[in-house]
């Protein structure tokens, strides 16, 4: 029997880091021990368990140094685009210009979790009128107010319309800081009517040509705004180059996800895979480095698969995870309860699909943007989840409800119903607040019971 790889605590990472450095670990410019992020206030790291590979260290360091990268870009004279509620389109455009950096302000939703409320962002957001009835992304509002987590962008864009009501309401409050926003609209994606001219979208979807044309016009406004801000032309060649590079990352992630989610024993922990997937949306403002981070992670996964090494027991129950949890500890907990991730849908499935390479760049980006799962009916998202759960061999489905997020209130039931009806997989929907401490026993019981039920069903099938 092959040994099981250990997941290690932050304290253990201190020693592991020294060991790796002594062995000649080469690190990128943002390297260093994980401990330094705790000293910067990311207290939650002390409660997590991590993969112990240099590839995972690089991944975490890349994620947690985004703030430094953005302030450094500002100091270096680069222009900064904040792409809000954009799950993978505007950053592809913005990074087509060498003097432009794009980032994802929505990522601030994890700050209260990572900082264990140390930055009081949720309290500040509440004082600004965005209390618990809103999605935890309200932390972003407070991050804009404090200006401590990212520089105020030179251009702030936000998709609006069929994407997310909560987000639109929160983003609108940014005008309180005289922060102008370029709103671009995503219509509610619909199935083409009989005889209506239609076009295929990534992810096996279709939409009327008229809707794609509308989104394309909206994105043309974004393109012009980026050009105006940068003082440079963002031509089709630059866009095509950006799309090709973004697709490179998407292909990397596709391979990484397939291998990590289908190989037994599981070669990479759930939490590192969650972070890796998140890179697809915004590349942590550095697409080139993002690619290098993912390549190293994939190489580690390949090495482990070849050696038959895993981070979970071979009999771990395969869980398909829907929606990112607001508290990262949930990913550790899932594994502690005997589960492993076998597939995921973190609400940006379209950012994992290749951007169509064989059409004009703006057309390709419009099709990709319209394929946003939040822009279409929950049933279509459920269809994709069913398809992916089967492809990844999932044995159960865990739906993480995000407290205050309006889309979760309705989507969860639709997805759960579809899974029960079509896949006959056990499914559990749990609410995951930014700090799970008060509900941890309840959450743990439900995940353990889900694992027990999945294992029992596995035995019944044999």
């Amino acid at each position, binding site marked *: 029997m092959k040994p099981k790889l250990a997941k290690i605590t932050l304290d253990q990472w201190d020693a592991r880091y020294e060991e790796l450095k002594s062995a000649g670990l080469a690190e990128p410019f943002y390297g260093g021990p994980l401990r330094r992020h705790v000293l910067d206030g990311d207290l939650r790291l002390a409660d997590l368990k991590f993969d112990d590979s240099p590839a995972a260290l690089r991944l975490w360091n890349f994620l947690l140094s985004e703030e430094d990268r953005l302030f450094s870009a500002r100091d270096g004279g680069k222009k900064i685009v904040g792409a809000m509620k954009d799950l993978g389109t505007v950053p592809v455009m913005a990074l087509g210009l060498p003097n432009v950096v794009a980032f994802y302000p929505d990522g601030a939703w994890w700050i209260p979790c990572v900082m264990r409320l140390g930055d009081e962002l949720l309290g500040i957001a509440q004082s600004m009128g965005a209390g618990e009835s809103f999605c935890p992304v309200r932390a972003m509002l407070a991050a804009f107010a404090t200006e401590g987590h990212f520089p105020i962008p030179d251009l702030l864009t936000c998709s609006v319309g069929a994407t997310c009501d909560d987000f639109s309401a929160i983003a609108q409050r940014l005008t309180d800081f005289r922060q102008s926003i370029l709103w671009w609209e995503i219509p509610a994606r619909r199935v083409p009517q009989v005889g209506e001219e239609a076009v295929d979208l990534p992810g096996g979807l279709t939409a009327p040509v008229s809707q794609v044309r509308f989104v394309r016009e909206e994105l043309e406004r974004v393109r012009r705004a980026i050009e105006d801000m940068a003082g440079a032309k963002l031509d089709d060649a630059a866009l095509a180059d950006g799309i090709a590079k973004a697709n490179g990352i998407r292909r990397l992630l596709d391979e990484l996800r397939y291998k990590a989610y289908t190989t037994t024993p599981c070669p990479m922990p759930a939490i590192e895979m969650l972070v890796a997937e998140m890179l697809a949306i915004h590349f942590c403002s550095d697409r080139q480095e993002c690619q290098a981070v993912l390549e190293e992670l994939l190489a580690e996964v390949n090495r482990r698969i070849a050696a038959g090494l895993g981070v979970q027991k071979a009999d771990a129950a395969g869980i398909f995870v829907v929606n990112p949890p607001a508290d990262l500890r949930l990913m550790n907990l899932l594994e502690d309860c005997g589960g492993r991730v076998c597939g995921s849908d973190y609400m940006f499935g379209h950012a994992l699909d290749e951007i169509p390479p064989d059409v004009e760049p703006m057309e390709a980006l419009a099709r990709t943007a319209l394929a946003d799962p939040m822009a279409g009916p929950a049933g279509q998202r459920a269809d994709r989840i069913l398809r992916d759960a089967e492809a990844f061999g999932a044995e159960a489905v865990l739906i993480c409800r995000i407290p205050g997020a309006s889309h979760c209130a309705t989507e969860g039931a639709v997805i759960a119903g579809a899974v029960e009806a079509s896949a006959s997989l056990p499914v559990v929907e749990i609410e995951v607040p930014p700090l799970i401490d*008060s*509900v941890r026993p*309840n959450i743990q019981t*439900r995940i353990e*019971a889900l694992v*027990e*039920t999945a294992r*029992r069903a596995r*035995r019944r099938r044999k």
Partner: protein
Amino acid sequence: MIYAGIDAGSRTIKVVLMASKGNRIIASGIADQGIDQERLAMDIFKRLISSSGKGRKDISRIVATGYGRNAISSADLAVTEITCQAAGVRLLCPQARTVVEIGGQDSKLIRLEADGSVRDFDMNDRCAAGTGRFLELVAARLGVGLDKFGELAGRSENPAVISSMCAVFAETEIIGLLAGGASPADIAAGVRDAVASRLTALAGGRLDDPIVLTGGVAMIPGLADVIAKVLDRQVQVSARPQYTGAIGAAIIACSRPEHSP
């Protein structure tokens, strides 16, 4: 061979000793929950062994379940109350296809396969409304013990309407009702009805017959009838409803290890 199931619930600890032959219950005991769960559980356990004329070495395996299952270090295995409730109901009500369990701090709805294993389940999220703890708070506010709560509610002629689903707000509402002259019986009946109504939201229409009610709250007289009325289905109270989880744990302890969850 003798096996033990320990249900370390949020309000009480239950222990069952079971003979593997015929899954026969040899002894059972209960105590209020406290700070040192392990000691409380082991006190009952030792008392039951002693009263059965057995020794510790006669117990082949212990399975712990319930909210405090992971605190019982003497157990060989910890299994969730969801799986244990299903196993217990399988013994006590073999035909059951849905288990409604109202425990001390949560409510569960468990749908079963034909072989009695868990098909799927749901639990209330974080709120205590509709749980044993909630009823206990209300009973105390009305000046009766939980054991008299059902009887009190049964005397109601005009059940009050409890609109709040939050335990804290409901208590405030009850204070207001009392101040407004509502009788304790009507308030108790209103709370009982609210608990039953809450289950419909949890069920979401996913109920397969026959439905069995378990958990300590199931012992409140009249509650099953109200739940049946609200759900518009027949609801049967399990034999020994408070012990169903511990019985299930003992059954799982009796199973061969490879058959454990």
